[in-house]
C-alpha cells in the first residue's frame, strides 16, 4: 500500500520480495492498467513472448527482459543464487567486457538496472528510442553468452554481502521481516529471502551459478516488454532480428510450491539493542492471483485500502489519530497486500507503537477492526472512496513510463493474460461488502497468522518520556 509517513519507501516494503542490483527507487507500484495501456502481445517462433506498451507521449523507451526464474527455483542450500546471477549478468560475455553494457547505455544518456524477486528476474534500460536495437543486441547477447570468471564472481560475492548488510543486517526491521517470512511459509520456497541467507551466499559456487544460468536463461523462458513511443510494427522486426535468432532450449518444469494447511497462530520477537522505535506486524497467509482462493484477490485489495490505506483509513484513524474517547496509540499504521505472485501472498497489518504504549493495546484495536471487517461493517462511502483511490492510483501509475512497463511485465511473467491487466478497474469496481467480509473471514484467520514484534531496546526508559 502507498503512503507511509517518513522514510520507509516503496523499496523497503518490496524489500523482502525484490532486491535490486543498484540504487533504484521503484515508484508507486499500483497493480495494473485499465485499457488505456492498449498493450499488444505476440510470440516469436522460438517461444519468446513480446509485449509492446505504446506511450506516444514519452521521449524515452523502457526495454525490459523478464525471465520466469527467481528465488523459488533455487536448489536447497543455494538461496540467493537467482539474485547472484542477476549481478553476474553485468560482468561481461564472450563478446562484451564486464561493465561494457552499462557503459554503452550511459553513453546514450540512458539508465540500466535489474531486479530479482521470488518468482522472476528482470533486466531493464531506459534509453532514447534510437538505442532500442543496441539494447536488444546486448540483452540477447547476455541471454546466452555470459562468462563466469572466478575472480569476478568472488568480488561480486563481496558486493552482494555488502548489499545484504545494508539492506538487511543493518536494519532490525528488515531482519524481522526476513524472519517473519521464514515462519509464515512452512514449506513454500518463499520462506527464503531473495537476497539469500548469508551462509548460502558464501557457499554458492561458480559451477552452481553457471548451471542455473544454463538451465533457465533461454528465449522460450523470457518476456520482452517495450514501453514508450513505439508500435508493434516497429518492435516486431527488431525483436525477430535480435531475439528471434536465439534457439529455444528444453526447460525443466518449475517447482509448484505448496503449503500445508495452516493450523498454528505463530508469534516471533526480535530483541535488538539497536532499536529505539518499536514496530509490530501481523501477517496472514493469503491467496494471490495465482494461488489458493484467487476469488478473494480483488476483495483483499479493497479491504487493505479501507483498513490501512493512508491517513483516512480505519487503522490510521483509530491508532494514530485517536478520538475523543481514546488517545492515539501509534505513530504509524497501515495495511499491505500484493496479489501479484505465483504462490501464496501475505496480507499484513503494520503499526509502530508510541513510546511506552503496550503492544497488546495495539493488537486489541487491530482485532476489533478486523472483526468489524469479518462482520461486513463497512460503510458505503468508505467502500466507494477506497475503490476511487485504487483506480486513481492506476491512472497515476500510467503517468509513469517505468511503472507502466513494470505493471504489464509483472502480470505477464507470473502467467496472467494481458486481459487481466486491462480488466482490473472493472474487477475492483465490482467488489461488494459481502465479498470483503467473506475474504476477511476466510483469510484473516488466526491459524494463518504470524505476529511479529520488534520492541524498543528499553521500553521502560521510553515509557518515562
Amino acid at each position, binding site marked *: 500500500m502507498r503512503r507511509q509517513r*517518513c522514510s520507509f519507501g516503496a523499496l523497503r516494503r518490496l524489500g523482502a520480495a525484490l532486491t535490486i542490483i543498484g540504487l533504484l527507487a521503484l515508484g508507486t507500484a499500483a497493480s495494473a492498467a485499465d485499457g488505456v495501456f492498449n498493450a499488444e502481445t505476440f510470440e516469436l517462433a522460438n517461444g519468446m513472448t513480446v509485449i509492446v506498451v505504446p506511450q506516444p*507521449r514519452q521521449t*524515452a523507451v523502457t526495454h525490459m527482459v523478464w525471465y520466469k526464474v527467481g528465488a523459488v527455483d533455487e536448489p536447497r542450500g543455494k538461496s540467493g543464487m537467482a539474485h547472484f546471477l542477476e549481478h553476474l549478468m553485468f560482468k561481461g560475455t564472450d563478446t562484451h567486457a564486464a561493465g561494457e553494457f552499462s557503459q554503452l547505455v550511459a553513453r546514450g544518456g540512458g539508465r540500466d538496472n535489474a531486479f530479482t524477486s521470488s518468482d522472476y528476474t528482470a533486466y531493464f534500460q531506459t*534509453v532514447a528510442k534510437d538505442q532500442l536495437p543496441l539494447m536488444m543486441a546486448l540483452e540477447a547477447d547476455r541471454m546466452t553468452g555470459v562468462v563466469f570468471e572466478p575472480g569476478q564472481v568472488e568480488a561480486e560475492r563481496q558486493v552482494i554481502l555488502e548489499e545484504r548488510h545494508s539492506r538487511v543486517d543493518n536494519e532490525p526491521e528488515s531482519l524481522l521481516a526476513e524472519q517473519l517470512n521464514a515462519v509464515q511459509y512452512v514449506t513454500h520456497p518463499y520462506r527464503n529471502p531473495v537476497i539469500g541467507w548469508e551462509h548460502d551466499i558464501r557457499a554458492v559456487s561458480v559451477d552452481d551459478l553457471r548451471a542455473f544460468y544454463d538451465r533457465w536463461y533461454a528465449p522460450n523462458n523470457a518476456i520482452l516488454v517495450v514501453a514508450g513511443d513505439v508500435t508493434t510494427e516497429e518492435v516486431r522486426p527488431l525483436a525477430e532480428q535480435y531475439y528471434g535468432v536465439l534457439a529455444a532450449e528444453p526447460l525443466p518444469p518449475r517447482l509448484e510450491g505448496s503449503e500445508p494447511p495452516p493450523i498454528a497462530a505463530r508469534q516471533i520477537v526480535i530483541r535488538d539493542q*539497536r532499536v529505539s522505535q518499536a514496530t509490530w506486524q501481523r501477517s496472514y497467509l493469503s491467496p494471490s492471483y495465482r494461488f489458493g482462493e484467487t476469488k478473494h484477490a480483488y476483495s483483499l485489495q479493497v479491504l487493505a485500502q479501507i483498513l490501512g490505506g493512508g491517513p483516512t483509513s480505519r487503522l490510521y484513524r483509530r491508532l494514530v489519530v*485517536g478520538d475523543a474517547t481514546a488517545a492515539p496509540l501509534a505513530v504509524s499504521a497501515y495495511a499491505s497486500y500484493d496479489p501479484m505472485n505465483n504462490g501464496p501472498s501475505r496480507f499484513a497489518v503494520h503499526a509502530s507503537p508510541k513510546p511506552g504504549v503496550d503492544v497488546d493495546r495495539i493488537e486489541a484495536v487491530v482485532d476489533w477492526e478486523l472483526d468489524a471487517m469479518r462482520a461486513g461493517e463497512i460503510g458505503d462511502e468508505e467502500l466507494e472512496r477506497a475503490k476511487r483511490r485504487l483506480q486513481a492510483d492506476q491512472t497515476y501509475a500510467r503517468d509513469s513510463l517505468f511503472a507502466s512497463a513494470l505493471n504489464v511485465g509483472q502480470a505477464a511473467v507470473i502467467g496472467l493474460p494481458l486481459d487481466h491487466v486491462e480488466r482490473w478497474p472493472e474487477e475492483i469496481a465490482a467488489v461488494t461488502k459481502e465479498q470483503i467480509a467473506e475474504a476477511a473471514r476466510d483469510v484473516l484467520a488466526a491459524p494463518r497468522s504470524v505476529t511479529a514484534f520488534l520492541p524498543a531496546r528499553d521500553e521502560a526508559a521510553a515509557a518515562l518520556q
Partner: protein
Amino acid sequence: MMRTRFLPTPALMVLAVAALVAVIASPARALDIQRIEGGGVEAWLVEDHSLPVIALKAAFRGGASLDPAGKEGLARMTGALLDEGAGEMSATAFQDALEDRAIELGFGADLDALGVSLRALSRDGDAAVDLLNLALTRPRFDADAIERIRGQLQSRVRQAADEPDSVAWDAYLKASFPDHVYGRPVEGTLESLAAITAEDLKTFARDALTRDRLIVAIVGDVTPSDASRMLATAFGNLPLSGPSSDVPNVEPRTGLGVLVRPVEARQSSLVFGQGGVWRDDPDYYVYAVVSRIFGGGGLTSRLFDAVREEEGLAYSISASPMQLDHAALFIGRGGTVNERVGETIDVVRREWRRLHDEGVTADEVTDAKAYLIGSFPLGLTSSSRIASTLVSLQQENLGIDYIDRRAALIGAVGLEDANRIARSKFNADALTIVVAGEPDGDVGKH
C-alpha cells in the same frame, strides 16, 4: 506527508542534486515550456493532454534555513501540519476531502525550501487547488494534530539515531558547517521538536509562505488559461512578502580527515567530500563533467569501478556535486562492512589523488558529456518528474531557455579544461570522511 524531492532521507537529497547536474538537453523532443501568470504569481507550464492528470510542484525558498536556533525541525514540522486541518476543516475532514477525490497533497522541507507536491485527476483540479490554498493560508495547527505530528517526527529522529546512514550524513553537515544553519539537522532533535509551539508554527507559516519566495511548475492535462486560474486560486492571496531572512553564503570546512561516529552496525556508512564549484561559476559545466567521470551515478564511474567492481568493497558507492542556495559541496557516499572501512578509505583517497595527479582521458570526457547531454530528456518520464525538474531549474535561476542552451554548454567542455578542474578542484588532502558504524582498527590513519 513528505514525498518527492523533499523526502527526509539524506540519500535522496544527494540524489536530487545529482539529478540537477544532469539538467537538460534535448536531442529528442524539446520540452515546450510556457510562462504563465495568475494572481500575481508566475509559473512554468507544460501541457500534456494525453492522460487526465495534473501535477503541480512548488517551492517556497527558505525552508529549514529559516528555523530559529533551538527550534530546529520547525520548517519540516510546519510542512507536515499544513494538511492536518485548515479553515473550517479538522485534520480528519481535510484528509477526507483529499481522499474523496484521490488528491495527493504533500509538504516537506529541505535545507533551502519548503516544498509542495500536488497531484490530481484533471477533473478535480479546481478542488485540489482550493484545498491547497486552504492549507497554505488557513492552517489550523490544532493541539491534537501538533502532538500527533510531533510524535511522528520524534519517532523518526529516534530511528535516525540508530541508522548509520543518517548519523553519518548529519555528522558530515555538522562538521562542514559548524557556524551556519546548514550544519543543523533539518529534521530537528528530540529537544528542539519538543520546544516548538503552536505560535512558532503560525509564525513560520505566515512569514515563510510568501509570494516572493514562491516557485511553481504545473504539468499535465490543463490549458494555460485554466492553469492561470488555478495559480491565482492556490497562491493569489498569500502575502507578497514577509520579514527578510539573511542566510549568508558559506564555504564548508574541509580537510578534517577521518571522523568516526559510533553506531552499532555490521556495516559502516561513509560520507566523504570537499568543497564544490558554485552553480554560477563559469567552470561549472567542466566540473559537472569531471564529477560525472569520477563519481557517476548509475553503474559507471571511476569510484564505482575501483570500489565495487574491482575490490567488491561496497554495494553502493557514488559521489556528486551538491549545490545548495548558499554553499557548494562535492559529496560521496558508500557503505562497507566494518572490517574493510580502512581499505575502502584508502581506495577512495587513491582515486581522489589519481584524479588530481593524472586527470581524465579524452574518452572519459566524451562519454561523460554524452551521458549528461542525453540523460536529461530521458529522465522526464512522468508528469511529476517533469514538474520537479521545472521547479529545480527555477530554483537554480537557469532561465526558461536553459533547456535549449544546455547541450551546447556541456558540449563545449574540452579535455584541457577538464584536467585543469581535476587538478584545481579535487584535492585528497581537502577530504573530510565521516564513518558511522563500528569500524575495525584505527581508521584515522587512513
